[in-house]
């Protein structure tokens, strides 16, 4: 193997490639060639570092220097200064948002220093398209250990003891699920990976598949051995083309290396994998619907029980776990269940990957021990709220979850605490909202979502969510009545109790949860006909603040309905009769003198 004095890691995840990281890579190779450094310095494409907002990101080792927002035209300077002369290029370093201090070491950046990477252990470190790099980081060691040193029962025991719970949302103990699938007798069993990742605002699974596909393949083979299955399926959303492509490459490489296929590692264990693509139906993330979809039908859920572990794919016993759940398995087998259960809280062991998005400075992917507080995530890792705005709520659990309000920011995040707050862990999307987000509007947003995605099989979900949505629409249009709140609650409870699958059973959560914590906002819409956050168009009036207006007349020129009038150099006024509340004037005003009230 060739030895290089430096490695330049370039992120090739979805985020950074869309900000042209592949051009940066090409430029790096070109510059290195030009300066004859190509035998000394190696450029490696890696998976997501997590810091998507700052992409394209690169890290130069052995120093561990982190550069962000690197453009192709920066590469020449970077190569000449850093790689040739050994001088840091200050202007491309990361700026801590709170302190404005430039940080050069990867490990000292607050975004990274609070994290603990288990499921993401290889993301941003290895080239996901090279099985050799995965193996060099102890890849497939866990499979070898399981096959050669452990009985099937011992593998299940280790997973049970680790305390790992399903990362796909429900938090069901993984070891127990494996035990059920093992217990069901059957010649043919299946192992399935749920990579449908439907929750809007979540991209953990995508990053794992793009950055470390072998960890999932290895875990599925271990699961196959443990429960007695020979065939597995990975169900991936078609919206993730890079993930699909890398998974395909990884499966082929694993076959070439004899890590999938017949007689794996010289034992009599056979196991192989196929990819199945989703086709844009949210309900297919629900496990029974997913299995129906793999069978080639409309992805409608089936009643449980029977649970998939008893009667799943083609009526055979089937183990189904989420991508992140699987990604933890090799580490647990290698390092032992005690190591894993030493991380986290009493009932939620290990770490959790969150996708930080919305109104937060550092958007991206993070992995923290269970029990980390929301405050640490938002202010230390996330760098706070942009533009000096106030933090209002963090939404977790997607359309099945709810919002954690600002006064509960010291909540330690784990499965049980979130349920107690009326939200849920979900798959790990964490969307931050500030004072300009209206909670009634957000509840309406989620109901629109579930309404659209309801498969229509059971009436409580199909019709009930529609009625709830209509009420919310009325409220946001200023036509709400005092009974509406009560009606919402009655409907919500009926839908929760009577729906067939998890989609309907959890669909009312965003409403119930915001009614609990933000009831005053609902009341302001209904009784005062006001939207305190200034979002619901029908309830706003636009006014020009005379003291701030310089009389430049720009607003009058851009107004599509000629609702603004005035004389130059004097304050302008808006005619509320003509105003259609499009907001164009606010955006164009350079002096911030127009407000929505």
């Amino acid at each position: 193997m060739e030895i290089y004095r430096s490695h330049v890691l370039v992120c090739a995840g979805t985020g950074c490639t869309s900000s042209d990281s592949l051009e940066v890579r090409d430029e790096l190779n070109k510059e290195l060639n030009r300066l004859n450094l190509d035998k000394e310095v190696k450029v490696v494409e890696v998976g997501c570092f997590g810091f998507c907002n700052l992409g394209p990101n690169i890290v130069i080792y052995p120093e561990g220097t982190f550069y962000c927002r690197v453009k192709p035209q920066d590469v020449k300077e970077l190569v000449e200064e850093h790689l040739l002369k050994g001088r840091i290029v200050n202007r491309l370093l990361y700026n801590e948002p709170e302190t404005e201090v430039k940080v050069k070491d990867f490990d000292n950046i607050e975004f990274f220093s609070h994290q603990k990477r288990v499921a993401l252990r290889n993301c941003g470190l290895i080239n996901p398209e090279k099985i050799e790099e995965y193996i060099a980081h102890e890849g497939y060691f866990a499979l070898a250990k399981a096959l050669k040193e452990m009985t099937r029962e011992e593998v299940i025991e280790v997973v049970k003891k680790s305390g790992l719970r399903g990362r796909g949302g429900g938090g069901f103990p993984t070891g127990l699920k494996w035990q059920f699938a093992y217990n069901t007798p059957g010649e043919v069993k299946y192992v399935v990976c749920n990579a449908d990742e439907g929750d809007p605002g979540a991209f953990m699974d995508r990053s794992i598949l793009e950055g470390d596909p072998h960890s999932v393949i290895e875990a599925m083979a271990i699961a196959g051995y443990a429960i007695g299955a020979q065939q597995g399926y990975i169900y991936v959303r078609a919206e993730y083309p890079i993930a699909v492509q890398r998974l395909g490459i990884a499966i082929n490489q694993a076959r070439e290396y004899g890590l999938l296929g017949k007689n794996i590692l010289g034992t009599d264990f056979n196991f192989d994998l196929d990819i199945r693509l989703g086709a844009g139906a949210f309900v297919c993330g629900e496990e029974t619907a997913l299995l129906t979809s793999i069978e080639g039908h409309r992805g409608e859920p089936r009643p449980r029980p029977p649970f998939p572990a008893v009667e799943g794919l083609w009526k055979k016993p089937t183990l189904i776990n989420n991508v992140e759940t699987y990604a933890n398995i090799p580490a647990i087998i290698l390092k032992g269940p005690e190591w894993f259960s030493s991380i986290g809280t009493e009932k939620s062991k290990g770490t959790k990957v969150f996708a930080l998005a919305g109104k937060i400075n550092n958007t991206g992917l993070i992995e923290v021990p269970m029990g980390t507080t929301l405050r640490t995530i938002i202010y230390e890792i996330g760098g706070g709220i942009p533009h000096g705005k106030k933090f209002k709520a963090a939404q977790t659990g997607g359309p099945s979850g709810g919002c954690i309000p600002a006064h509960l920011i010291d909540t330690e995040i784990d499965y049980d605490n979130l349920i107690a707050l009326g939200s849920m862990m979900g798959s790990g999307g964490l969307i931050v909202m500030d004072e300009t987000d209206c909670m009634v509007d957000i509840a309406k947003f989620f109901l629109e979502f579930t309404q659209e995605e309801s498969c229509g099989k059971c009436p409580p979900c199909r019709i009930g969510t529609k009625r709830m949505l209509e009420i919310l629409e009325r409220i946001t249009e200023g036509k709400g009545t005092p009974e509406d709140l009560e009606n919402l609650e009655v409907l919500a409870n009926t839908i929760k109790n009577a729906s067939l699958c998890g989609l309907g059973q959890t669909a009312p959560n965003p409403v119930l949860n915001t009614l609990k914590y933000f009831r005053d906002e609902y009341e302001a819409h209904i009784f005062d006909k006001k939207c305190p956050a200034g979002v619901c168009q029908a309830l706003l009036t636009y006014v020009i603040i005379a003291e701030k207006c310089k009389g430049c007349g720009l607003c009058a020129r851009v107004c599509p309905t000629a609702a603004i009038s005035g004389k130059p150099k004097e304050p302008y006024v808006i005619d509320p009769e003509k105003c259609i509340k499009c907001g164009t004037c606010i955006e164009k005003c350079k002096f911030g003198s127009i407000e929505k009230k």
Partner: protein
Amino acid sequence: MSCNCKSSTLETKDPRFQQLDEIIEKYKDQSGALSPVLHEAQNVFVYLPESVQIYIAEGLNVPLSEVYGVVTFYSLFSTEPRGKYVINVCLGTACYVKGSGKIMERLKKELGVEIGGTTEDGLFTLKGCRCLGACGLAPVLTINEQVHGRLTEDDVPSLVRLYRAKEEQSVN
């Protein structure tokens, strides 16, 4: 079924049906073949018109109602022709709170179509979707498979121009 689709002139002349034969052959003996066949057929035909659905139903020996049921269940399968570039604006939560609604409005105006519509020149189809998994870059849209992130409303016209220019180049 009594119609003689296989021997109709349309399908024997159109070389894409030969490709479809190969796709059907590849999956025919697998269980759950319908959905991968539909995915690949859509890649070949751009959308799934009735003739293609009938052809697949016969090739895989499944009822046409089953094929139609599956095609209409999943939002990624289309029974309408689509433009050369499909613009998918993310309306997921992260993008929503960062203002993707305004980007959608601007695109509607710029292209002169509603959601689901295709421009007259057949170049663009405008669609909305729920989360592309690039939430760190919100608001986000994709044009075919290319992801465009951190957008503002004012980026819309230049983005559209970029693709129009690309098209003119490829024509000349």
